[in-house]
């Protein structure tokens, strides 16, 4: 007899009640400072449901700070952030995670000694319903729940084509694969907004092509909204729908890739024209 596992509930992206093309996240007049250092100054932009939104800019432009503001790691001194139609000011990163914001990091932040499977499983934590008591008791509901989660993880493993490293400790994997596992962990949360901090840093051409393909597939197949920071202009121009350009904490450009490419301020920022201030 053929034992098909229960079809999983895995959808790739949770339903957030926002229709495709509507505003999912709105950043309005946000400023962030660390003591006297202004990291972000009066930046406004929005992210639409279902799009791939790139944030670019030279080193120190405030890109990662911006991402940290979006997922609640930093609280801006000024400005408002409206996510899924609800304005918020201060929040914890766990709240952001519960609300469906998942991210990857510039410097891979996986559990090096754990297997690929276990790493991706940790991405399901916010979706686990059973509390510590049930988890400790194990048999029954917690076990059934874990089987469901494991099935979802298997779908991610299949999606990202990492079957062969399922049980390998991630510390032993090459860099490009670790990046892929990290994407897998973020996907496991079935995010409605996926933040990718330099997903292609340090990769060779082939790995970049693979990663671009996966990002497009995630966006296409699951309808996940993606905000990404990336330095490789070729990749950014190819895969993003709209681009925000930051320089010295200010927004200097915003629009479709071809518009941004023609923007004189952007060209100056990248070619290093001296600033007046």
């Amino acid at each position, binding site marked *: *007899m*053929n*034992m*098909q*596992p229960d079809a999983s509930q895995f959808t790739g992206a949770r339903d957030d009640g926002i229709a495709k093309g509507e505003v999912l996240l709105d950043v309005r007049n946000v400023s962030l400072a660390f003591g006297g250092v202004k990291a972000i100054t009066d930046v406004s932009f929005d992210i639409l449901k279902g799009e791939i939104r790139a944030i670019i800019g030279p080193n120190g432009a405030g890109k990662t700070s911006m991402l940290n503001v979006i997922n609640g790691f930093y609280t801006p001194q000024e400005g408002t952030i409206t996510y899924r139609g609800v304005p918020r000011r201060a929040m914890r990163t766990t709240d952001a995670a519960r609300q469906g914001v998942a991210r990857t990091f510039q410097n891979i932040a996986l559990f090096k000694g754990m297997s690929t499977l276990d790493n991706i499983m940790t991405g399901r934590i916010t979706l686990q319903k059973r509390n510590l008591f049930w988890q400790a008791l194990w048999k029954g509901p917690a076990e059934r729940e874990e089987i469901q989660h*494991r*099935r979802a993880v*298997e*779908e991610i*493993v*299949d999606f990202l*084509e990492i*079957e*062969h490293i*399922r*049980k390998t400790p991630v510390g032993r994997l090459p860099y490009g694969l670790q990046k892929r596992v990290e994407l897998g962990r973020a996907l496991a949360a079935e995010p409605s907004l996926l933040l990718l901090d330099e997903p292609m840093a340090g990769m060779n051409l082939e790995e970049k092509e693979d990663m671009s393909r996966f990002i497009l*597939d995630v966006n296409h*197949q699951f309808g996940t909204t993606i905000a990404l920071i990336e330095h490789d202009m070729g990749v950014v121009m190819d895969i993003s729908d709209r681009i925000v350009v930051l320089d010295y904490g200010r927004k200097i450009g915003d629009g479709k890739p071809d518009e941004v490419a023609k923007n004189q301020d952007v060209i100056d920022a990248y070619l290093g024209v001296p600033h007046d201030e």
Partner: protein
Amino acid sequence: MVRGRNQALAEHKPKLDTFPKYLLLNAERFGDLPAMRHKSFGIWQSWSWKDQLEEVRAFSIGLETLGVKHGERVAVVGANRPRLYWTIAALQCLGAVPVPVYADAVAEELAYVLDHAGVKLAVVQDQEQVDKLLSFSEKIPNLGMIIYDETRGLGDYDHSRLVSFTDVQESGRKSMAADSSAAQQWEDTILAASGDDISIMLYTSGTTGRSKGVVIGAAASVEAACDTANFDHLTERDSVLAYLPLAWVGDHYLNYAQGYVSGFCVNCPEGPETVTQDLKEIGPTFYFAPPRVFEGLLTMVTIRMEDAGRVKKWLFDRFIAVARKHGEAILEGRPVPLSGRIAYALGRVFVYGPLKNVLGLSKVRVAYTAGEAIGEDLFSFFRSLGINLKQLYGQTEAFLYVTCQKDGAVRADAVGPAAPNVDLRISADGEVQFRSPGMFKGYYLEDAKTAEAMTEDGYVKTGDAGFFDKDGQLRIIDRAKDVGRLNSGALFSPKYVENVLKFFPNIKEVVAFGDNRDFCAVFINIDLQAVGNWAERNNISYASYQELAGHPLVYEIIAGHVDDTNRKLCKEPMMAGAQVKRFLILHKELDADDGELTRTQKVRRSYIAERYGELIEALYDGSTDKYVETEVTYEDGRKGKIHATVRIADATVYDVAPEAMQEAAE
């Protein structure tokens, strides 16, 4: 159980001369035993013979509704997936002809085969294959619908020519539900089918040019499969891992044909990269691998042991030495002193058992290797662990088996006596020729080439030069047309020289030149895994194959191997003249995508000679380096150029060893 099976056999009055007849029989006699397994989403799924019959029937009747008719050719392209194996059976049930094609063939090759075979329909694995077919659709005018297995990425495609496997099965199930006699009619068609039908068309890998469609008859293929399944006592309790290319005669014969006649379970790996893990999980009882796979396993074991702790390393070395001494004798039931038996039993506990378990070879009852010569050391390493590894010699034209070794009569340098019911002979000019039950009907649409491949009295010419050894085992020297002579008149067999060199783990591929030349010279490909590991341990950094291949220390290592080879060759009077005088390490790995290897990874000698003409001249004109530009094809079909200055090194040539001279004189 046995009685029930015999009854079922007896009740099956029609002659069992097609695989679909076996499908019906197996569903009856082995009903709930597993016929197929496949790992999907991390869990092994299994299908019993009953399930398999149901899956094949639904798809087959679905194909009928798509208009597939008796005698029509249908392409099957993809990796080893249950659904593609079912496709082959489903087509055979209708009397249609499956034409499996290598999944890694580039679009152009694929289009050539599909056009040549005149396929009306293609059943493919995934988006990749669909893309290839669509990109060349104007070159395959006869091709209508494309049926795909995996839906991923195909959602947005224009479905006017595409249909999914499940949809076809669904339409089959619907017509069965609508017409209660449909299933019975389908079974009647199978039982009424003739053994003269074509069972399958297998395209050769094209070692010597364009691939040819080898037509295999139904009754012939069943008969051949029964012979070898009996020879190795294969039963419904056996299992295999189907990881070899679906389009290769070896996979079709060993897994599909033998599976249907003996009823064993075919396990499909999750993907090409997980084969080693799947092998470990399944633990097959019948195993086939070309020598290069065994070589890869041994290299992996050696490398891992280099990194192991001191105790483990000591245990390993100690007991492998015991195995080398007594292992083969114990396997073959020859007398071994008690102390040897005790040491071997301990070794089994500490080393051989765990090692076989890691390799996934614990349960192997019969293992075969073929396709290339296998090194004595390598061969006996696996046998000494207690793995019943044997050799066979075969061809697509024979539907695989020509010779195979009997249990207990196994040697590394020969391929065994004729397989059951095979008529084998050596022609006057030294060519191996055979007549066998599974012999092909001819090449599809190429009568001239068929006639060329046959003798007047109906034997198939293998094109291999060989001879029978004292104990009646066949020994293959080389391709008959490759055996040549040096200008000195000495015999030159390129493969012989290449094989001696290839037995060094650091050397992956060799191409030897020497026919009508003054001396023998070789191209060498280093083994990136083995040499890369050495480089890592010695803090040598490199960025690419090209850089590592050109490294002076790598040249030193390879020079050492060439020297050892010459020392070995000089001891054999027949081959002493063919010692390697000059060699170079190629700046790129030989690759099937560039046409340098066949899809089964055999060297295409004449093509290489043409492509690297400049380098060959450099080998013979005495220059010490040569600048070359080489065009390469990337996997997506784009072309690029690599350029390099290749160094050419000299090697010492030895006089014929005195003891060899003596032997020759005696």
